[in-house]
């Protein structure tokens, strides 16, 4: 049984897809039709994990969208990692609208996911992180990723 919850909302030529859960070998994307849409917005904040079998199914599913313009919103780190690593995970017609960047403070152990939005924190060729990210106690937090690796997809 799939551990992924998918909700689809079609309005005019735009399809909004909300996903939450785990994308693995149990997922059956064939029941979610992407074809016939000009615009597909995929909301990914609820995705917890994805494995290699899930990636295979994802790429096949994205391939069924045809020429539709696809945007990914609120991408968690697990999705950004796959976008960076797996060629085709983000379709050629796809674009990331927003994604989360993990921050942490090594001393306090505080963690926070900061949303980077297209046009605000990043553009097609550059990233402008917030000047300072602080935890609840006001401590400075640092980015919990290898920037050259994590922001790679922006500079493609």
């Amino acid at each position, binding site marked *: 049984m799939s551990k992924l919850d998918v909700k689809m909302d079609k309005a005019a030529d735009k399809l909004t897809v909300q996903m939450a859960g785990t994308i693995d070998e149990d997922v059956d994307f064939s029941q979610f039709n992407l074809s016939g849409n000009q615009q597909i917005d995929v909301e990914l904040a609820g995705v917890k994990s994805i494995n290699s079998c899930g*990636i295979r199914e994802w790429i096949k599913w994205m391939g069924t969208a045809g020429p539709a313009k696809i945007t990914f919103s609120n991408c968690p780190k697990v999705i950004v990692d796959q976008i*960076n*690593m*797996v*060629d*085709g995970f983000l379709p050629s017609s796809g674009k990331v609208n927003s994604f989360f960047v993990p921050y942490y403070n090594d001393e306090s152990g505080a963690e926070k996911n900061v949303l980077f939005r297209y046009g605000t924190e990043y553009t097609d060729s550059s990233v402008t992180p917030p000047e300072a990210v602080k935890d609840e106690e006001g401590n400075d937090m640092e980015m919990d990723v*290898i920037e*050259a*690796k994590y922001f790679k997809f922006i500079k493609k």
Partner: protein
Amino acid sequence: MKKRGLSIRYKILLLLTSIPLITLTAYLVLALRIFEDDKIAYVFDSSSTMSGTMAAQIKTQLNAVLGTTKPIFQDYLSQYKFSPVANSIFQNEFNIEDIVVFTQGATGQYEKSAVLEKVPDGANSLLGTLAAQMPLYFAETDANGRVVKVPFHDDRVLIMERVLNDTKTKSTIFMVLVRMSESAEMFRAATSQKLYLISADGTVLFGPEEMPGQKIQSLINPQFLSDTGSKVGQGAETVKAANGADLLVSYAKAGFGDLTVVTTVEKAQALSAVQILIRKSLIFFGVLVSLTVIISLFASSGLTHALTQLFTATKKVSEGDFNVRVDVTSNDEVGSLADNFNLMAAEVSRLLEQTAEKARMESELQTAKTVQETLFPETRAKIGPLAIAGYYEPASECGGDWWHYCQVGNKIFLWIGDATGHGAPAALITSAAKSASTIIEKLDISPAKAMELLNRSIYDVSKGRIMMTFFLASFDLTTGELVYCNASHEAPFLMKKGADVLKKKDLVPLNEVNNPRLGQARDSIYEQTSIQLDAGDGVFFYTDGIPDIQNPSKEAWGEREFIKALIAANKDFPNVSDSVDRFALSFQSHRQGAALVDDVTFFVVKHEGLQ
């Protein structure tokens, strides 16, 4: 096997027969006791009735005698001689043989005064015979007013009645000898119950043959004889006879003189019906037990037959024959047991086959593991300036990760890949990759071209069902140039040697090019790029199983700890062996022996300076 005890068939038989036997025995004992008590009560009741009836009859008869003789007595007392009227009455009473009148003389002794007799000189003959007893009779009559004797131990009864004059100064004793044949015969003829007419001292007046004149104490010594002052006129008691037999004794005082009627019945005789009941009950018991045994045999044979089948079948199972089945058609618990046994045997048989199959597959997997191990290179190597050290641990017998290095001309090719999933299917793909690499190595081509060929090989083998991320690099032994091509694999980290210790910012991901995974499409085009490695620089190649390493609490190691461990292991740019050992130690301390969720593969190369 444990030694068998009593068969369940005999246990059932024993149970079914012992229950009615015990129940009926208890019932019989209880019933017999009640019956015996009831019977004794009945005998006491009937014999008391008999005693009372006989006592009343004796009293009536004796009173009748006195009633007849009373006019004679009065006739005498009116004239102190018998008139012809008195004689006439006497002659008409055939049962009365003699009447003798005694009056007190001057000395106070009784002297014969008058006589009425049926036989001439009969009275004198009577007095002559009783001469010895007469003083005693007079004394008793004086004391009691009336005495009844049977002096000849036959049916003749001697009644002595004392009559006082009006001033009570002179007493006259009338002695009447009367024959009571019917009463004597009744006492004599009694059979099952013995009747005795006794006087106060226990002398038997009437009774069975040989007993008249005897003391009843020679037979029995009932309590009521000793209790002389008792006013109880009738009673019953159990008395042990002189011969040891228990007698049921009842008595009734006649109310005439000191006469008492006693009835005795032998207890054993009275309870003979109980013996009959016992005999009949025993016969009934025998029949019932026999029937129970026969029915039990039939009932138990049906049950034990099925159980015997089950026993035989389980014995065969214990000997290893799991194909045995039990044919029991009953619908009861034993039938269900047999059905369950058959299901169990079938399931065990299936599991055994499955276990054998599993053992065979495990054996094959072990063989595959052994074969796959040959696909991996020596974990420590140094080719020219390039030192190499690696680590590989599959999540199961066979893994989907693979790494390799080889020298082609003046280049060292470095291979690392990760097939979709893990286990045997992924391992087969790594085998295909290894096979392809063996050929590709001989072609002396660029990493990008090599990747294209490798992709076709993987695609042809998996038909798009299993893919592989891959990273292929070639290190030029003479220039130090590293050319690489990535097929959606985790980008290796270049650890650029600086003057200071290694820091996070010194980690450079080799991700300038990326390409589709191997096996995704047959004709994918792969691009490559290059970087320059300087002496001291190292590169860390790995698969994505490393951040996924979990501890026993299922907590993943995570990318942050992974990066920290990588930096810590290489902060002083150690040799590759130390680098691998340190890094492995880091994740093993997190893992704490927990099973891997994915294969773990990494290797480190270090440029140790051109020759």
